[in-house]
């Protein structure tokens, strides 16, 4: 370990692995370390033994659950939105050759005590109980307006300026009912709270377009998911980095972030060894309590409660779907933030046959977080095993330019990886000083 690197990366979560993959391709000499003996950090997928070790100490998993190796239980409930930025990075870097994806079978939304499918086709929309007949007509006009919008063609704007008009004003113009607004804002634009309503409509427009174009891409739901769990994603990017010369060390404790007298980054100490590099990137867990310097580098920006639930049946009311997202909009359960359920199963090679793994999550609003997810837990039916965690969301205090210490963000409560990619782009710009540009790669022609 006496070599000097361009960048040391700490933690093998998805954010860090995408960065080290892209940096290695760019020609940087990267050393990537993780204190755990597995890849993925907080975005890992664990087998049963690892899962029980993490949540239950010495308790062994019940043999009834089947073989250890059949399990890859995600710690963070997220899906990949088909037309999003992560998909672009996966294709651009060609790591898709290490991965295989399947669709998520359906997306559901909770309304007045029951769940209904988010329509994925016009036929489903016509039959959907989510809106009355007249409301459907109004909603149709609203979606046509969004679909036809062209920035350069004022005729498509219907006197609305997306950059100044609030989303509230847009909803009102089309006369949409509060229940429909809830559905659009939470089940399609995927806002976790209602703050967006009083902001300019542009972002909501873009989020609805992302959702509908993702839905149109493969049908059924806007989401795709990697076989063998989300933990495959960091592994694939780590492999990309390794192929371009990145050095990998798992199971490596990090004892100190070494800085010079001005506080600038010098290296990372593990035991008695110190490895030097020009810059360091890491997840917040490596910068939380630097006892040596007493320096605080991250702050807590809320908490997320997540309950990983092992079920022996599909979720009731989902037509026995093998994988679903269920959104409980905050208004429906008198909260400030939505409750999400993400469920996958053996179809995605993440658990034994006839087992279903659902994660119920939300942003913590009270001092009894487990109580807050009860409306979600109640939708699941009997729960075989439940592992609850309350995780702080950390944000770096500084941009790292002054000390060459670049800290990523914790995984938030959103249902897909778009905020992870935003973090990657943000860190990249801070490190390289330029925007991350994904060049178009040659498109593979698939033979029929």
């Amino acid at each position: 370990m006496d070599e000097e690197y361009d960048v040391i990366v700490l933690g093998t979560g998805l954010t860090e692995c995408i960065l080290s993959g892209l940096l290695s391709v760019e020609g940087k000499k990267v050393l990537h370390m993780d204190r755990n003996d597995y890849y993925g950090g907080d975005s890992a997928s664990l087998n049963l033994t690892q899962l029980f070790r993490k949540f239950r100490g010495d308790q062994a998993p019940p043999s009834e659950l089947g073989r250890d190796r059949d399990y890859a239980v995600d710690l963070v409930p997220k899906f990949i939105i088909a037309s999003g930025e992560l998909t672009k990075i996966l294709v651009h870097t060609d790591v898709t050759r290490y991965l295989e994806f399947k669709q998520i079978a359906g997306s559901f939304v909770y309304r007045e005590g029951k769940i209904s499918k988010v329509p994925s086709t016009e036929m489903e929309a016509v039959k959907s109980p989510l809106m009355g007949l007249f409301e459907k007509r109004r909603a149709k006009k609203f979606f046509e307006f969004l679909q036809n919008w062209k920035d350069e063609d004022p005729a498509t704007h219907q006197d609305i300026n997306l950059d100044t008009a609030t989303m509230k004003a847009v909803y009102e113009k089309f006369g949409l009912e509060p229940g429909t607004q809830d559905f659009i804002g939470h089940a399609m634009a995927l806002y976790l709270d209602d703050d967006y309503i009083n902001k300019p409509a542009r972002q909501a427009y873009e989020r609805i377009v992302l959702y509908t174009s993702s839905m149109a891409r493969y049908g059924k739901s806007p989401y795709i998911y990697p076989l063998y769990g989300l933990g495959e994603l960091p592994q694939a990017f780590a492999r990309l980095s390794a192929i371009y010369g990145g050095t990998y060390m798992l199971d490596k404790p990090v004892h100190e972030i070494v800085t010079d007298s001005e506080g600038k980054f010098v290296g990372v100490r593990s035991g008695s060894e110190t490895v030097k590099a020009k810059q360091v990137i890491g997840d917040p867990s490596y910068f939380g309590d630097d006892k040596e310097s007493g320096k605080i580098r991250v702050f807590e920006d809320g908490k997320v409660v997540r309950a990983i639930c092992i079920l022996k049946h599909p979720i009731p009311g989902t037509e026995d779907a093998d994988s679903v997202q269920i959104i409980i909009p905050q208004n429906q359960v008198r909260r400030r933030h939505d409750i999400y359920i993400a469920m996958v199963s053996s179809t995605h090679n993440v658990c034994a046959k006839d087992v279903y793994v659902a994660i119920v999550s939300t942003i913590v609003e009270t001092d009894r977080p487990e109580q807050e997810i009860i409306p979600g837990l109640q939708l699941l039916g009997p729960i075989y095993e439940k592992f609850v965690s309350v995780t702080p969301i950390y944000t770096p205090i500084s941009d790292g330019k002054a000390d060459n210490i670049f800290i990523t963000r914790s995984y938030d409560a959103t249902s897909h990886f778009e905020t992870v990619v935003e973090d990657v782009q943000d860190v990249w710009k801070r490190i390289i000083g330029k925007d991350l540009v994904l060049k178009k790669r040659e498109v593979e022609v698939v033979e029929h």
Partner: protein
Amino acid sequence: MSKQLQFKLVLLGESAVGKSSLVLRFVKDQFDDYRETAFLTQTVNLDDGTSVKFEIWDTAGQERYKSLAPMYYRNANCAVVVYDITQTASLEKARNWIRELQRQADPSIVIALCGNKLDLAARRQVTQEEAQKYAEEEGLMWAETSAKTGEGVSDIFTRIAKKLPTTAQPASRGGASRAGATAGRAGVDLNKQQRPSTSADQCNC
């Protein structure tokens, strides 16, 4: 009728035993100028008309600090575990890799133990008897090779090709014959959807 089969082959073994050189010899019939490559493929044609395509995964150095990802072993149909016949310790490491394969890989995996650097036989430390005995005990294929001269290289890959099941599913991207991928809903191909619209695509409408 000729049959085309595709399998995922992983390389294992201590650093500097010649894993990458062995593959370079097999795939390109070269010895020098190895540049780490993500994904190499090579097809072996068997006498019965079957062609076996190997999708070869190199460790990319991730074995150095025991940091190979589970993804590496996943759905591997065959493994070539390499040791250096001039280094006794490298056979010991090979035994560890074989134990790791038995723990992590599919139980049906075909494993070949391969003693490389046969061109340096004058400096041999590992006897043929010792390695062969171990291979027999563990039910592994065994061979000695020289990536430098090419001796024994295509032979061991052909032997592996013959031993693989003839009924395997064609490999999909991300690994050969994934059991789950064939059951239920078909997977989605991110690359395929990126194609620009051409007249050929319209048959799907």
